[in-house]
């Protein structure tokens, strides 16, 4: 079976959920080989989880430089592996960094770039499904020429476990040319506490300008916490300083597609909807009965979020016992 290279998205010695989705997609196209690019020791911590989602091989590309420069080491390693393994496709997460890695890789190897797939299909040539303009259009695309380099949207398809051998094979990280790369001089990872990451969460509770202040975002957080949800925010809430920018949902923020999205005090502007309207179920609370968010909500309550949300929090807590 044809080999499919899967770039492992990992942080702090753990794979991100999207890696399992990539391996699942890889199995639809051939036999997935996981590619770990990172600091020495990273791959050992990830192997078990990669095996559980069907990685036949694990290519281990570890060095200090691999973790010390932005994007280019990953492209270098993948390009070298493409040359030695002649894979059927390369799969990368459509995260901020993954989109950059896949774009550069396609440019370097003369591959076909297929971005932000929500599904992949083997069969007669590889086809990907994409959702564009914030979910307004569904598109199927193919590589016209060259190796398909595909970025896959986190949460786009469902991960399915399958045992793989996960045989490790060390590969070299090509030397970094500092004139052509950006050196990482420091990191301040998001301290999200125990909340799931926004793009990976199955439930998202978002607050908008209606929340009114940074302090009152507690109302949003409390509901999120009983539901095991991630917290999101509208751009107006972010711009007003109520919540940090990395939690912005929408066209210029994150695109989320959870099982359940709860919008509190969000009007539902087109740019906000672009980032959340593919959610399976949408609940909205807004005191304005005319707010456009109600046009796409499965269940809407016209009312004050400061009355409705705490009551919902309490009800959910009760049911969990």
């Amino acid at each position: 079976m044809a080999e499919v290279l899967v770039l492992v998205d990992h942080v702090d010695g753990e794979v991100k959920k999207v890696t399992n989705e990539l391996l699942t997609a890889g199995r639809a196209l051939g036999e997935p080989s996981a590619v770990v690019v990172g600091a020495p020791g990273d791959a050992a911590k990830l192997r078990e989880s990669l095996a559980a989602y069907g990685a036949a091989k694990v290519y281990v590309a570890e060095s200090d430089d691999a973790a010390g420069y932005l994007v280019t080491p990953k492209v270098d390693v993948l390009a070298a592996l493409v040359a030695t393994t002649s894979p059927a496709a390369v799969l990368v997460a459509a995260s901020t960094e993954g989109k950059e890695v896949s774009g550069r890789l396609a440019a370097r190897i003369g591959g076909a770039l297929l971005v932000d797939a929500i599904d992949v299909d083997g069969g007669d040539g590889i086809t990907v499904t994409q959702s564009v303009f914030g979910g307004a259009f569904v598109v199927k695309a193919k590589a016209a020429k060259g190796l398909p380099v595909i970025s896959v949207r986190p949460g786009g398809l469902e991960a399915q476990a399958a045992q793989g051998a996960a045989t490790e094979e060390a590969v070299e990280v090509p030397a970094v040319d500092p004139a052509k790369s950006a050196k990482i001089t420091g990191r301040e990872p998001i301290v999200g506490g125990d909340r799931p990451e926004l793009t990976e969460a199955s439930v998202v509770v978002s607050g908008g300008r209606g929340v009114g202040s940074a302090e009152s975002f507690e109302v949003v957080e409390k509901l999120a916490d009983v539901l095991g949800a991630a917290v999101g925010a509208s751009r107006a809430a972010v711009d007003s300083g109520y919540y940090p920018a990395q939690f912005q949902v929408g066209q210029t923020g994150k695109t989320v597609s959870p099982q359940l999205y709860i919008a509190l005090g969000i009007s539902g502007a087109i740019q906000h909807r672009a980032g959340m309207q593919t959610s399976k179920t949408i609940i909205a609370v807004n005191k304005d009965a005319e707010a456009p968010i109600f046009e796409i909500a499965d269940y809407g309550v016209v009312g004050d979020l400061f009355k409705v949300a705490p009551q919902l929090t309490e009800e959910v807590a009760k049911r969990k016992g």
Partner: protein
Amino acid sequence: MPNIVVLVKQVPDTYSERKLSDTDHTLDRDSADAVLDEINERAIEEALQIKEAHDGEVTVLSVGPDRATDAIRKALSMGADKAVHVVDDALHGSDILQTAKVLAAAIGTVEDVDLVIAGNESSDGSGGAVPAILAELLGYPQLTHVREVTVDGSTVKVTRETEEGLTHLEASLPAVISVGEKINEPRYPSFKGIMAAKKKPVETLDVSDLGVDAGDVGLANAWSTVVEAAPKPPREAGQRVEDDGDGGSRIAEYLVGQKLI
């Protein structure tokens, strides 16, 4: 004295309805109003701030149809010095890789470039990949998705902001930067700026001027092809109730009914 090239793109206004054309599945540019992409205003603003601090020259570059001149004029009226507009019918339907190659060739026509500044992600294609691909093609370091930039001699330091949090980066010039939404508040063009922009030079180039083969660009030569495109049926509004003091409980009941809790 950094020479800065700012990449700007005209996009359909996100407030209007955006469509794919029925015939070839490319962006239907006539169906929506066209505007300078908001993120590119921030790219221009950052370039102007760097220029104000260090001198230098700001060149605006756009690859797009005739009417992209409006976007270019807006950039010039904000304060950019001159512009290059690559316009060619052969480019219709070009994909991300082809567009990046044309942009790289056009950047090559500007002398002694120190910085290329782009938006991090365009609001129509949302590829979020052009700046990185340009860095690849030009052999420059990429400092992308940034919310803070400092240029110090031949070194550039930035803070990158992504879903991972903040990353501090450092590289040598020349380099490619892409700006995020939180980097600055773009200035409004002044009346004086608008008048001055009318006289600023705009060089118009086609692909042959760039030494790019017309057989390498455009829909027919793209690396990827759309085989099918369908509008998704719009979401329908569900139930809407007034809160009578039991709104929270009613949502909880709904969620139980849907087996969501």
